[in-house]
């Protein structure tokens, strides 16, 4: 019993209802953000699992900052995954993306994966904040939600986003 109390959860009883409610509400969005970065469904779901475990360990489910925290962590964790994939080399990166490259024939699938790999390599080279801004914006967050997630002023989001987009286009063109 002492062990159970120390662990804070009783095996077999599951997680606190508030956490499960948070998970149901935010999971699709967390996966969507991660997917914009890693472009692979399985990896995006793995990122989301890690993000929720991280939150579960350290934060109460009813924390007012839960949603912005999860979104920011999704972006940064996915970017870490992307960078480590890039470090492993181009072949690995293309192979990882081929799984999700839906195309009628293998040659087209390979080409799609190659293009997406170049886009992701460019994203991985961006400064952390710029990449996170793009992941959150194109993962479906509003300016207000991005400001909350990244701890930035709402009034600066538009400018920062435009700069991030310009930097991204330059990286793609390299």
């Amino acid at each position, binding site marked *: 019993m002492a062990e159970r109390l120390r*662990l804070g959860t009783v095996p077999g009883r599951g997680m606190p209802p508030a956490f*499960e409610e948070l*998970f*149901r509400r935010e999971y699709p969005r967390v996966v969507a953000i991660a997917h914009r970065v890693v472009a692979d469904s399985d990896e995006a779901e793995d990122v989301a699992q890690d993000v929720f*475990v991280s939150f*579960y360990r*350290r934060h109460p489910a009813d924390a007012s900052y839960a949603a912005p925290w999860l979104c920011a962590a999704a972006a*940064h964790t996915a970017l870490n995954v992307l960078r480590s994939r890039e470090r492993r080399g181009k072949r690995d990166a293309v192979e990882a993306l081929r799984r*999700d490259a839906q195309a009628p024939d293998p040659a087209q699938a390979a080409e799609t994966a190659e293009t997406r790999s170049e886009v992701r390599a460019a994203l991985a080279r961006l400064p952390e904040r710029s990449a996170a801004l793009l992941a959150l914006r194109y993962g479906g967050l509003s300016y207000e939600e991005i400001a909350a997630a990244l701890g930035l002023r709402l009034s600066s989001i538009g400018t920062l986003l435009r700069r991030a987009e310009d930097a991204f*286009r330059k990286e793609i063109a390299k």
Partner: protein
Amino acid sequence: MSDIEDMLSGPEPKVDTERALARLRARVEAERIAPVGHGTSTPRPFVVNIWLRGLAAAATVVLVATLLTVSGLAETILTIFEPRQLVAVPITTTDLSGAPSFEAYGTLTWTEQPKPYDVPDLRTAARDSGMTVLIPGNLPAGVGAPRYGVMPKTTATFTFSADKTRQAAAAQKRTPPPMPANIDGSKLFITGGPAVVTFYDDGARPTGATGATGASPFTGMPKLIVAQGRPPVVQSDGVTVEQLQSYLLAQPGISPQLAAQIRAIKDPSSTLPIPIPVDMATSKKVTVQGVEGIFVGDSTGLGSGVIWQKDGIVYGVAGTLTEQQVLAVANSLH
């Protein structure tokens, strides 16, 4: 659809939230992951707080305690140890939960307890610590007045015990390799500090640091922490660093990856490992004050810190600031 959206688009992931929740439940159960405690009146701060505290403490003997008790591994390289350089050692959640605690190998006895205390001003901090305390010439906007704390020099003795190791392993139903006879009963003498930590609170805390959501997740956290201290020195009464490393890295619960990283440290007797929890933070080498330092960024992107060693003193600067702001503060210390 904008060109960027077009580039970042792809087949939308098909999400089965209930299946994903079941997967998470199974993981939480299998890894016995505990949720944060309930009933606390103040909001739990971001994970950034964990390593911010760690970084602030890095220049103090608290770092030694953290390394010894949290990673359970740093002791492998602490024998006759006088660090002159720093190295980032990535650690994972599994490493933290799987590695045995330092207490499993023997008994730590404080001969001079770590007792930090507040001092009213810079002059007192310098006098009590016996160090020239560096101050930032450049502070980011919104940073309030400084508060100073001093950690006096601290010493401790650690005595290895084969009996204690066997008992700790048995309690976890594990079988450790036998402790070599020359390690059983041998002692490590650990000295840390003194250190000075300067805290800067948020000068004009708005209704919420995150702006849009109201309540700040950083309630109660300093905006900026600047720390400096004498690095820990460890002496042994006979056991060599190689003997300890060989024995401790063979313990159950220590991942081969982590063991390889520790073994890869070229000069373990003069290298201070900075544990970087890879699921919470990233790190990279940077140049600070003309020397090599380690920059650490929290995985939420909301906080960052840098640690370096110069002229026999370890320095750390951390805060809920951007990388540029933290490095600007670090480089402006004088």
